[in-house]
């Protein structure tokens, strides 16, 4: 290698590493005896029954602005339905949507009435709380040897669920071009198996990060939502 190129090598390596999210995502072979357990582990972060959850929610925007409020969610993973309300610490409800057969916007105080906000919120909730698919996922190892479950979505996108060695779970949403669109990181779970903290990061514009901290939870009403 020419001496003039040598200083560029670290930069190139960094660039390649940073571009890993768009690198080929082929799954490596996995011991078939482990497949069923890994597949079951991949459903661990998601709700298994109707739940009412209250989170402290912090939103961070690209300009560094950060706002905090309280989010209330009643979700039925069996039906894939939910209702969620965002409110200020003082209790003023800013945003209220319900997902049944369709998404209904019940309340949206500016700036929460911005186009696309409700859809993005719907996607965030689906990614963080609902199993990515009903069918069995493809299971394999990622480039670092970590087990991955890959779920195909009807819209052509894919969701990877990674069980990390430190106990954290990561959920990644990839676009049709293999670009990483969103990620959900769940570092730990409480005794009921519910995520204590969740970090949702949108990689596309407008990018944002949502951090949720669970403060209350109970079983939802009998019969679901």
């Amino acid at each position: 290698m020419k001496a003039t190129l040598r200083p560029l090598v670290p930069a190139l390596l960094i660039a390649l590493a940073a571009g890993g999210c768009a690198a080929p995502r082929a799954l490596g072979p996995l011991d078939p005896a482990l497949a069923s357990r890994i597949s079951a582990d991949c459903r661990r972060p998601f709700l298994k029954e109707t739940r009412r959850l209250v989170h402290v929610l912090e939103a961070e925007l690209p300009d560094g602005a950060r706002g905090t409020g309280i989010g209330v969610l009643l979700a039925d993973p069996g039906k894939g339905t939910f209702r969620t309300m965002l409110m200020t610490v003082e209790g003023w409800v800013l945003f209220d949507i319900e997902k049944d057969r369709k998404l209904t916007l019940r309340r949206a105080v500016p700036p929460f009435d911005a186009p696309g906000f409700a859809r993005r919120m719907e996607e965030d909730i689906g990614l963080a709380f609902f199993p990515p698919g009903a069918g069995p996922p493809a299971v394999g190892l990622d480039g670092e040897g970590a087990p991955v479950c890959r779920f195909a979505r009807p819209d052509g996108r894919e969701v990877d669920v990674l069980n990390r060695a430190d106990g954290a779970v990561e959920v990644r949403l990839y676009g049709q071009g293999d670009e990483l669109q969103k990620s959900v990181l769940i570092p730990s779970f409480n005794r009921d198996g519910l995520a204590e903290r969740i970090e949702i990061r949108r990689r596309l514009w407008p990018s944002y990060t949502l951090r949720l901290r669970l403060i209350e939870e109970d079983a939802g009403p009998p019969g679901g939502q």
Partner: protein
Amino acid sequence: MNGPGSQARRPQRPAPFWGLFLLLPFLLAWEGSWDGFGEASRRIDTLEARFVQKKTVPILAAPLLSQGRFFYRSPSQLRWEYDHPVRSVLMINRGAVKRYLREGERWREDSSAALPVMRVIMEEILNWHQGRFDASPHFQASLQTEPEPLVLLVPREASWKKMIRRIELEPSREQAGVMKSVRMVEDERTFTLLEFQGVRINRPLPDGLFRAVE
């Protein structure tokens, strides 16, 4: 609070509500007439109290409880502090509005989308402080004497009626110039009840309480 993809727009409609909301705990006297409000209000230089907030929404089995303290000093200083479940402080000091959130061992200034409009609060506070209940362009005030004394504030504008149906202020019979409770009704299944306890008036409050988070 800001949210996904909501950087640019600033809220417009909530401003008057916020003004009322933050003003609610104090400076209301029940003397059976609007004139009484002004007179009792002018006798209060400072006010401090604890509060319990009960937020009822249709998807929760029980109200979400919050609690904290507030401090007021005439004519234009307010500190609205939550201890639970989120430690936060909202301060209004002679027109400057700031909100802080506790993160671990530190306070972080919050750049909430709602914050800029809170400057409007001061206009409402000044109105109420002077007993000018009926001065708000956004709410129609009326007095109810039976079965319990109550001040009802109903939005004047259709756009506001979509957001909030009414505010019910229950004055203390024991302490002139003090609120017993406030109920803000967004709809029949979504409302906030604030109950005030341990109200103390006209005790010296340090200026720093309204200038610095701690």
